[in-house]
């Protein structure tokens, strides 16, 4: 495939059309994209963009963009699917800003009878104590909550007639995929690490297949499995 050159004058629609023509869209991918568009429309462009860039090996910074897309989809998908799910993020910075505004200087904390080194206890303003307590409560809650990946597969398993528990093998494998892409999201001072193209495609496909297994057509998946079974059962 020839290198892609960005042409600032080109029609975006046309570019998209050309790209789509260049990238293989097997049934699995088509179904997954349709699902994103229907159930998680805010993430659909990121997925579609990643798919397109996958087909453009020379596109500058593509690995970085693809990795961002995969990480963000993995992290945010469950919150998009489940409106009612509270974010698991703790606003550490916001809390610390509030505490900082009210935090007295050390001199004010000690009356002349003790020094910071010898004191066993100090008094702090009640409002500061409340802020700290709130921060710790949220932090504890975050630690106790299932991860967003557990929550994602819980959501995906909701339709499973067997009501089986979430398979930890699956969560762990999904985290591995996400972690692999996560490592590629940061821009560095030096040149970005070389990424094996085959690995990139395999990891991306694994990401797609994992989601498709839940949300795509069941029989699309079984057709692929039938082909494998036919090959391996011989």
């Amino acid at each position, binding site marked *: 495939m020839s290198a892609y050159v960005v042409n600032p004058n080109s029609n975006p629609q046309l570019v998209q059309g050309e790209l789509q023509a260049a990238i293989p869209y097997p049934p699995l991918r088509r179904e997954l994209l349709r699902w994103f568009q229907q159930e998680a429309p805010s993430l659909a462009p990121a997925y579609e963009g990643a798919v397109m860039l996958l087909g453009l090996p020379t596109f500058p910074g593509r690995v970085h963009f693809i990795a961002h897309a995969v990480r963000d989809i993995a992290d945010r998908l469950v919150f998009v699917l489940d409106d009612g799910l509270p974010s698991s993020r703790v606003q550490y910075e916001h809390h610390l800003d509030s505490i900082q505004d009210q935090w007295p200087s050390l001199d004010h904390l000690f009356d002349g009878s003790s020094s910071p080194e010898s004191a066993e206890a100090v008094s702090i303003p009640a409002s500061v104590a409340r802020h700290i307590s709130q921060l710790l409560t949220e932090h504890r809650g975050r630690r106790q909550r299932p991860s967003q990946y557990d929550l994602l597969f819980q959501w995906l398993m909701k339709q499973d007639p067997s009501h089986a528990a979430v398979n930890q093998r699956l969560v762990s494998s999904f985290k591995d995929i996400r972690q692999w892409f996560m490592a590629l999201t940061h821009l560095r001072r030096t040149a970005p690490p070389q990424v094996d193209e085959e690995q990139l495609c395999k990891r991306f496909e694994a990401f797609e297949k*994992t989601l498709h297994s839940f949300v795509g057509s069941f029989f699309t998946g079984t057709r692929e499995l039938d082909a494998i079974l036919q090959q391996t059962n011989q």
Partner: protein
Amino acid sequence: MQSFSKPTNELIEATIPLLASPQHERYFLDRLDNPHWITPLREHGFFQHPPAPEEVSGGGVRCQAWPQSRYLVRMASHAPKEVAEILAEIDSDNWIVARDIIEAGEEMRPEYAAKLAPKIGELIEQLGLWYKLDDVGGIAARLARENEADAAVDLVKTAFAIDRRKTTTTLRHRDDYGYFEGLRDSVIPSLIAVRASELLELLIRWMSEAIETEEGRRIGGDDFSYVWRPAIEDHEQNRDFDFAAKLVGCVRDAFELAIRDGHLRLSDALPMLEEPEYLLFRRLHLHLITEFADHDPELARRTMLDRSLFGAYGCKHEHARLMGQRFGLLSKQQQAEWLEWIEAGPEKMEPDYRDESEDDESRQRRREYWQFQKLHWIRDHLTDMWRTFYERKFEEHGKPDLADLHVYSSGGRWGHESPYTAEQLSEMGFEAAVEAVARWRLDPEQRGLDEPTVEGLAGTFQEYVALDALTFSSQARQLEDKPAVYVRRFLRAMEAAVKEGKQIDLVSVLALCEWVLNRPVDEDTSPTNADGGLVERDWQWCRDTIADLLQEICKAKDDAQRPRFGVQHREKLWAVIKPLLNSPTKSYILREDAEKDPRITDWPQLALNSPRGRAMNAVVAYADWMPDHLVEDRKEQRSLPGGFEQMPEVRELLEDQLTRPDDHFTARAAFGWRLGLLFWLDADWLRRHADTIFDLRAYEDDPSKAFGWAAWNTFLFANRPRIEFYRILRDQFSYAVDQAATLEKPQDSREQPFAQLAEHLIVLYGRGDFGRDASEAFDADSAIVKRLVTTTHESVRSHAIEFVGMTLKDGGEDLPKEVVQRFKNLWERYWEAIGAEDAERNPGSYVFGYWFSCGVFDPEWSIVQLEKFVTAARKAGPDHMIMKRLASICNIDPLRSARIVGMLVDGDDEGWRVPSWKGEARTVLIAAMKAGGEAKDVAEQVVDRLGRRGYVEFGELLEKKSDDG
């Protein structure tokens, strides 16, 4: 040997993500037949998380099958090492997985099964999989035969152990079949050959533990085994109901097999049985000496001449058997010595249980019987004087009771014995027979389960009377002064004769009835106390029988459907009926809920089984009988001319009943029972008294005096809906509907009064009795139908609606359009008002299911309503009937039909609904796919969901579509 291709890393990496969803994982693993996948799947963690048991709503625990373990079972013979390693590491309470592990153990070669054996033993013990022990026994046997005896013994030790910590109940309730199949058929034959002593020691330990597990089974060393296992050998008196009793047979077989096949000498086996403290082992010891006396004849002789054993209570059977089988081993002198013990008689004479006098004659008789019992042991060896003695006693007593046992159980009999047969009574003639019956008393010498009883005799007497009811009825007065039990049986025979259309001498029979009614009710005429409570002590049952007899007399018709008994009996009949009303009101049926809430009590049943209720039914039967003598053809008469003026005695009695101070529910019920008759006899009288008879509001003042509910509930139960009744009882219907809103318990069974109230009103509504126009009828008469289906208890209104469909499903095809329209209006108004909420609360509701499946309503309307209904109630029923109808009309609305199928599929959480209508679902989905557009999209989604539930055959529909496309 079969060879398999090794999957490449690329193939494995490409496959694993495809197996993310449990459905795809199951699909792949159910079909995978290549052992080379075991390792990569293991590395990817596929065998680490078997599904845990889950609690199900309503109690209980459910386990899911695990495709991984099924795959490993299939691979166990190809890759036993890997499979054994993986399965040995699995830690799960899932008994389906545990079963797979056992099955894999059966499939793999013994050297690998040995590695799995500890895990199998652990699973059996932890999960109580007793029913799998026959398979585990098979594994142990294979291990023992193929040089893995250590593993076999370890497996048996764990899997077959009896945990003393388990309760008696646990021991009794577990599945004995698998345990004993495994032990007897597999473990014992195989392990005896290689580890005889070890296995026998185990069996002895388990036997002791089984004895100890049963509470109250032992006092010191006496384990009462002569009661729960009368004989060590197989014996018709062994009743092996419990675990310990069955285990005795296994222990015995194991010892016998070990000695017989030369794996253990008798001299080594016997000491093993001397150590445990329980009596059972002494008995086993004796049993082995008997069985293997040819191995050590001297030991057998010594044992037979052991005086301490001669009178040993618990070992009686085994000692008797030893004597019987091995007496011939004794020398003449030794035999004579033993017979001297017989001659000497018992050391101590037990007191006679029959309280016989203790005179010399009695003592001698008992001594001889004791000798007879002992001689019975060696009956085949007797000669000379002892043979003569034995034969004489045998002729006198037959086989001696309990000669070698302490307990004896017969097959058991039902019913009572009679000292006479009906034929014997016939030969006596009636008068003598009556005297013989009345005089008969149980011989105190013949007390026992098999002996005749008064009830048995009374039953035979009834049979005898039935042989010639007409003749004997004319001699009815012979029964006067005889015990109530025989008089009752005589009257029962008369009742049966009348019922069968036979003639009786009514005058004589009524005279006997009058005599009975003149006796004090509580007079004790019972001929014996020996039958405990089985024989009536007073005349009440006899009076009840008179009430039943009078009903039959009044109902009896000739071939021309005219009364068989003429009006000349009027006075006599009434003279007998009237005193019956003084009977008690209490029902013979005891119901805890009776009278707590009279509104929901089953009064018809209680009244039918109460003396007063039966007497009232006799009154009503009389009131039904009289008009046939007053009018030529009552069918021609809209009502009885003159009404109760023609039967003032009935009117007076009915009015008396309504005002008597000891009125009761059971008496009042009779008014409701034959309301149609009362209406025909005198409608004006009924109108005047309806509010008294059916005084439902009395419930507000004192529920215990609200007798009107008995008449009301009985009316609803026994009468078809008629607008004439409704007009008289309009207030009662309205009040009852209001009461139906205050119920605390559901009333949804057709036998329950408020459900019957709903049915009455729905029939009247459907017929148009509340108005022909649908809307008008729904709101008519203070909106009684509207209130019924919107404000009453959920169970009542749901029953009202469901009743329509249930009724129409059997022959509603020719229903007039206006009736159909009324019902459609009923459904729409109900659904709009509260039906949707009801359905959401009850996902398994049947309320609309019968409507839809009955085929009475037009398909378009039906499908639209069904979609609404199933949207609210995803488990709607009866689903198989719904689907049958839907498959037949789906072409009318393929889109909705496909949606309905999808919802019913989603509602099948339990997984047993879809299989019952897969064919119909297929029909609907094909129709929807052919229709194209949205219907096709929906159908494809449903097919997908069906596939995910394991119904992969539906995938053909998509392929068909691809082929067609």
